């Protein structure tokens, strides 16, 4: 008898132990659903062929990328568990994790990485991002060697989740045009969440991928993204707890209101990677703005402090140069153009625009991006009043819609314009395009529409793009910023104040440089909401 009992006991123990070993201990706070509100519906879910915030949010949950980033611009392993840049800078070797699989079970191999990189190079709107890539060798299934035609330090940032989603070759490699591939609406990736439901224009649902290659992640069971096009309704939803995350809040009053809401946590962290800059751009080939003294005068006459403190309620950070203040490459020691009306008037006199009897010196027009009142229109209207004090009469030209404005600016039919441009992490991706002489391309918005041309700057940017030594690179960009700021093709005003708002109780918040445009596998409910 006792032998049977002991055998049974033994069997039971073994079974229990095996069960215990198989299941990972669930930590407190795992599970649950988070609802994110967004004002813009994504066109589709494939971030390889489409940039922009609406696509990046879902794309970074569904697809994984070789690298991811932390709060301090340090790359961290993701699909690539290690990476090595060759000493000559002409190749980067990625060693992939061996246990990553796509949502349909296929393993993620170097073939997929090679395919994705070449696909992005061919289809992505930002052509400079991967222009240096020649090909990708795949010596074995878990090694990818990216071969470059010249050193390309920006490649590391280009391997971020928002910019380099790894696509499954066995699905996308069928010859169809990637930009309109049907899989874009039924995406299969290797990221922490799978797309399980999608109602066009209303919401989409992302559910935990059980076989995600990082154990214990993602911590949430489900993310629902609701499309609420009315910003006010989105705010109210967050306040009442119907929605848990509200990204990209940018209105001063909205931010104020949310900061005062008891069950909401507001943070400005998570936007350093995007590097959104708000500025006043000059058409440097049009009289009188072809004279640097006039441009500098406008810089001195405009009161950046008033704009930031009074018009933006102190919610924005000042920007003084082409690289956004949150970037490690930003050079703070540049001419800040602090408000100095006397100096402005001196410069205008020197440039040959004296004050006429009625108090005016010259007349200019100013444009702005329609639909962005607080960051664009209000400043244009403010400048009209402010620059009048220096004798500059401004006519505000309103454009009823974005293409009208874009058409004017890209065909150089403007004097000055307000604009918002993103750095996108590495200067090669989002900064060069504004200052390179070679990027003066008519008809393309957000190219070098200021028609700025300085051979020294071209030289510096070309050298910095290829400089593999971080110290030397920083020095090159430093010189670049100093020159550009004193050449003043642009008067820099502020970093666009973006904030993310979360329901209190959430932890593991996405505060890396890419914020919500990176996987939310660490997000969890520390204190779940009372149901």
């Amino acid at each position, binding site marked *: 008898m006792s032998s049977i009992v002991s055998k049974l006991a033994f069997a039971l123990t073994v079974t229990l132990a095996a069960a215990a070993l198989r299941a990972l201990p669930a930590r407190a706070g795992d599970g649950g659903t988070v609802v994110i509100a967004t004002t*813009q*519906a994504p*066109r589709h879910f494939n971030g390889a062929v489409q940039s922009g915030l609406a696509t990046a949010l879902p794309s970074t949950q569904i697809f994984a990328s070789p690298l991811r980033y932390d709060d301090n611009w340090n790359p961290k392993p993701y699909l690539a568990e290690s990476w090595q840049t060759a000493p000559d800078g002409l190749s980067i070797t990625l060693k992939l994790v061996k246990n990553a699989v796509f949502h349909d079970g296929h393993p993620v191999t170097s073939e997929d990485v090679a395919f994705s990189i070449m696909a992005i190079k061919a289809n992505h*709107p930002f*052509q400079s991002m991967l222009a240096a890539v020649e090909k990708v060798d795949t010596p074995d299934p878990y090694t990818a060697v990216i071969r470059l035609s010249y050193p390309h330090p920006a490649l590391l940032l280009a391997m971020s989740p928002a910019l380099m989603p790894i696509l499954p070759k066995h699905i996308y490699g069928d010859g169809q045009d990637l930009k309109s591939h049907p899989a874009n609406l039924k995406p299969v990736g290797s990221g922490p969440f799978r797309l399980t439901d999608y109602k066009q224009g209303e919401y989409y649902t992302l559910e935990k991928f059980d076989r995600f290659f990082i154990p214990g992640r993602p911590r949430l069971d489900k993310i629902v993204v609701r499309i609420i096009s009315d910003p006010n309704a989105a705010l109210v939803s967050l306040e009442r707890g*119907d929605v848990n995350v509200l990204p990209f809040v940018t209105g001063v009053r909205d931010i104020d209101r949310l900061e005062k809401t008891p069950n909401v946590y507001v943070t400005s962290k998570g936007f350093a990677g995007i590097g959104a800059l708000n500025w006043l751009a000059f058409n440097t080939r049009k009289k009188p703005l072809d004279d640097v003294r006039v441009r500098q005068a406008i810089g001195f006459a405009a009161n950046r402090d008033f704009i930031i403190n009074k018009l933006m309620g102190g919610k924005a950070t000042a920007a003084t140069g082409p690289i956004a203040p949150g970037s490690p490459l930003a050079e703070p020691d540049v001419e800040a153009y602090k408000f100095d009306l006397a100096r402005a008037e001196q410069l205008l006199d020197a440039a040959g625009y004296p004050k006429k009897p009625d108090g005016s010196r010259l007349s200019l027009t100013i444009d702005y991006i329609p639909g962005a009142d607080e960051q664009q229109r209000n400043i244009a209207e403010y400048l009209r009043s402010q620059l009048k004090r220096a004798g500059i009469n401004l006519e505000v030209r309103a454009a009823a819609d974005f*293409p009208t404005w874009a058409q004017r600016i890209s065909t150089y039919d403007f004097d000055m314009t307000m604009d918002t441009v993103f750095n996108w992490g590495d200067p090669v991706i989002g900064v060069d395009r504004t200052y390179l002489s070679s990027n003066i391309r008519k008809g*393309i918005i957000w190219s070098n529409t200021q028609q700025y041309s300085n051979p020294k700057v071209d030289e510096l940017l070309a050298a910095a793009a290829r400089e593999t030594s971080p110290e030397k690179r920083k020095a090159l960009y430093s010189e670049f910023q100093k020159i550009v700021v004193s050449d003043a093709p642009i008067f820099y005003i502020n970093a666009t104040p973006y904030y993310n708002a979360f329901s209190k109780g959430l932890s593991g918040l996405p505060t890396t440089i890419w914020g919500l445009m990176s996987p939310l596998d660490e997000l969890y409910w520390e204190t779940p909401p009372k149901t």
Partner: protein
Amino acid sequence: MNLVAHVIRQAANAAGLLLAVLVLNFCLIHLTPGDPAQVMAGEMGGASPEVMAALRVKYGLDHSLAEQLLTYLSKVATGDFGYSYYFNEPVVGLIAQRLPATLYLVLSALLLSVLIGTLLGVVSARRPNGLFSQAVTVLSLAGYAAPIFWTGLMLLLLFGSVWPVLPVSGMADVVTPKTGLAYAIDVARHLVLPSSTLALVFIAQYSRLARVNMIDALAADYVRTARAKGLPEYVVVGKHALRNTLIPIVTVAGLQFGQLFAGAVLVETIFSWPGMGRLVFESILRRDYPTLLAILFFSAVLVMAANIVTDLVYRLIDPRIRSGAP
């Protein structure tokens, strides 16, 4: 007069006009500088020339205006109004989503204004020089002069911060969505402010019209006869005078559908009412050609439909026409 033939003729006329509306607006909108490819480039944060060229080919923007027009018209004939660049869904679906909200708003405002306007006018007609009558005249003048967007904003202020008993934005509760009867009541509550704002202007007009016509009607011969016959007052007023008062009001109301719609755009903006009015706004800003064209088209359709219906109702309730005069 054969009513059916009449309606058919009107419908044919309408079709011709609507076609003209489509063509005109298509040409106008496509004349503006820039195109939707730029909108998409804008959303993406910038795009290379190659990508933009590819987008233009994809959306057929590289063809000539005439070609694009013909393609568009042939698609419309099959009920395909195209795909919204901005909202990323078929335009018809988009409009089908938003149209009901606007219809609730417009029809409830219409009903409200006709009922209240007529009531005010009729009551004040009994004693044309009395205090009530004069008050109605003054109020109706005021209602007409006050800009809709101003009245709406004032009501928003009142119910938004001073006396928050009514919801001031949206059509229904997004926090705890209700179903069935509770949903209907919720929508009705949200409808109160926007609908009243929209109705105010027209209440003013209809009360004046009702008053004038009622005074006229009450002084008519046949009314005096009816009274002399000893018919009860409410029959006199209700049956005879009222019917003749309603005719011009119905006519005017039907013809003003276009203005109701315009007012709806303003009201929807103020109260964040998710209707077609706001869609106009958004699609103009994004140069969303297909959506904009479809909205212009459908509003013209609604106006035409209102005209035809008004004409029908007019013929039905006006005994002189019903009796066979052409």
